[in-house]
């Protein structure tokens, strides 16, 4: 059975979705979703240990040997991302029951669960597949599901936000598939490993350069790379709480994975980074994201939007490591996929509880006044996760920044070190606004915590922020293996 795990990783959530639609019962939907999410985490963990001991391995879908058939391939990088996605899912799924029951009509709840399962299947599929076109199919599965997840939000603006995201996302997916089409034109293959071999020596051909440009911009849209991030704040702000937490922690991260895969294992990194201005472009865009998006967050009134802007800034940290293109920088980048996932996941899960208790569809920073008294545990969790966003030592965020700074010093890019510190200081400013409102301002209302299931999921994720800050055997060790793997393929 072990050899089928790469396929089952994707098939389980994919089968759960139609079962949920057939059953049409919110209770069954929740049970199936939770069971599948935990099963996915177990499978991802098994795959990761197998890769750590035996090395990368591949699975021939339909028993057609690669490169003719579709190949699923698990290596150090994809195993790490699989664990990150499944880990988030295993916290979001138990949380979903109360949250969805509070935010959606009874006759739509099962659809929300079905879409969540499809989105999970798509994200895991993107990560596990070794085929460029199969990757596009999973990209579409996860994107279409996430448009619906966002559109199911309580406010009418959710529809506009979902439509905006759909326009941008469709452009992104189209650009990606144009890029893949050009590569297919040049090489006659869609298998990623086979593409890598056939592209050696023809990197300077114009179609290959055009493919690189299309794929970079297309995936850049999906991952909200700085000037292409406009869809993100609205999408996160108006989506149902559970969808925001899940998408913020996983969707953009998986897109970063796609970019890493293409940059370091398909295209020749030597040509990419030495003969093209890739390094400069990524450093400039990342630093712009880190500073500008953080500044916007400082002045944002609505809390979910504030953290959505903070996500744009944090994605800047992740892409910064690509620009640094050395082991420390990439370790920071890859570790931040998980570190930022648990941090932002915790924040949005806890904010879902705040929204549920306040009864309002949107939470302004002002309405958090007195939260420390009304919901002490939630407020405490938010502060912990906030510290991780800033990058205080002892939290997951610090680990990332430590490696990014090491990478920048190694490149002697002192202005990048300065930008990381400046961006952290701005993060202090926007997190402080919350702390000030929650603890220093008097508010009304009696003490009433979020429902136990929601609170537990949020606090557990906040706990992970601290755990990953002290015990780095999962996040840093995994990311370091993945970075070595990428750079080994590189030179």
């Amino acid at each position, binding site marked *: 059975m072990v050899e*089928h795990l790469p*396929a*089952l990783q994707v*098939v389980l959530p*994919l*089968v759960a*979705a*139609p*079962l949920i*639609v*057939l059953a049409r019962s919110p209770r069954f939907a929740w049970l199936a979703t939770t069971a599948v999410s935990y099963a996915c985490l177990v499978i991802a963990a098994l795959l990761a240990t197998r890769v750590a001991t035996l090395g990368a391995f591949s*699975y*021939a*879908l*339909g*028993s057609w040997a690669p490169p003719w058939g579709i190949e699923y391939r698990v290596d150090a990088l994809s195993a790490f991302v699989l664990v990150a996605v499944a880990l988030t899912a295993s916290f979001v799924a138990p949380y979903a029951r109360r949250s969805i029951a509070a935010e959606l009509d009874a006759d739509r709840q099962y659809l929300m669960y079905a879409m969540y399962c499809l989105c999970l299947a798509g994200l895991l599929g993107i990560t596990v597949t070794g085929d460029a076109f199969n990757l596009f199919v999973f990209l579409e599965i996860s994107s279409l599901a996430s448009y619906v997840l966002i559109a199911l939000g309580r406010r009418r603006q959710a529809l506009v936000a979902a439509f905006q995201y759909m326009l941008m996302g469709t452009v992104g997916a189209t650009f990606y598939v144009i890029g893949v089409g050009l590569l297919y034109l040049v090489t006659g293959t869609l298998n990623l490993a086979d593409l890598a071999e056939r592209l050696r020596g023809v990197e300077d051909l114009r179609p290959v350069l055009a493919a690189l440009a299309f794929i970079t911009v297309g995936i850049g849209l999906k991952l909200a790379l700085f000037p292409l991030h406009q869809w993100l704040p609205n999408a996160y702000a108006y989506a149902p709480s559970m969808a925001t937490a899940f998408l913020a922690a996983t969707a953009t991260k998986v897109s970063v994975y796609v970019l890493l895969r293409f940059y370091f294992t398909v295209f020749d990194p030597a040509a990419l980074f030495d003969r093209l201005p890739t390094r400069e472009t990524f450093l400039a865009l990342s630093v712009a994201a880190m500073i500008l998006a953080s500044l916007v967050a400082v002045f944002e009134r609505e809390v979910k939007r504030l953290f959505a802007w903070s996500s744009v800034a944090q994605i800047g940290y992740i892409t910064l490591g690509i620009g640094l293109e050395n082991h420390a920088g990439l370790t920071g980048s890859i570790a931040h996929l998980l570190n930022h996932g648990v941090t932002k996941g915790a924040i949005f899960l806890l904010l879902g509880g705040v929204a549920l208790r306040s009864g309002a569809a949107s939470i302004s920073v002002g309405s958090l006044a007195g939260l420390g008294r009304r919901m002490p545990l939630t407020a405490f969790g938010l502060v912990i996760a906030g510290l991780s966003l800033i990058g205080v030592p002892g939290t997951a965020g610090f680990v990332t920044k430590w490696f990014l700074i090491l990478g920048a010093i190694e490149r002697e890019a002192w202005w990048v070190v300065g930008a990381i510190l400046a961006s952290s200081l701005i993060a202090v400013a926007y997190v402080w606004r919350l702390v000030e409102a929650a603890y220093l301002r008097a508010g009304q209302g009696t003490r009433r915590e979020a429902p136990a299931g929601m609170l537990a999921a949020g606090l557990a994720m906040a706990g992970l922020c601290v755990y990953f800050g002290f015990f780095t055997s999962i996040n840093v060790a995994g990311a370091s293996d993945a970075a070595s793997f990428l750079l080994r393929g590189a030179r």
Partner: protein
Amino acid sequence: MKDDIILRVVAKLLTPFMLLFALYVQFHADFGPGGGFQAGVIAAAAVVFYALVFGLRAGLRLVPEAVAERMLAAGALLYAGVGLAGIALGGNYLDYFVLDADAVHGQHRGIFWVEVGVLFTVSGVMLKLFYMFAGRGGTRDERGGE
């Protein structure tokens, strides 16, 4: 349109043949153009045509919305089930070779059931889309008196 006798008679005559043609496109796809996608659209078009002439309510009596929704889920499940059957019979996921003692016949059998799954999902999706658009606005009677 249900007051026009020509339309009514033609619609009644054509609908079963359209469904039959869908089955032809579905099962003749081994030898000619066609397959689950095309057949699914043709089958759904037959029901849509019927609903256009006799009213949405009549169409919903023919294929209720809940049935359309279950069709689209059942089709996807059938497709995934064929894949899992491959694993159960000792092959990989979506392995058709092991579905029969003879590998070529196994491929036939696999693609046959997968295409049946596609037929159900595609016609279910087309009908669900039609019902959702047709059900918007209008009077209660035109919507089929939900």
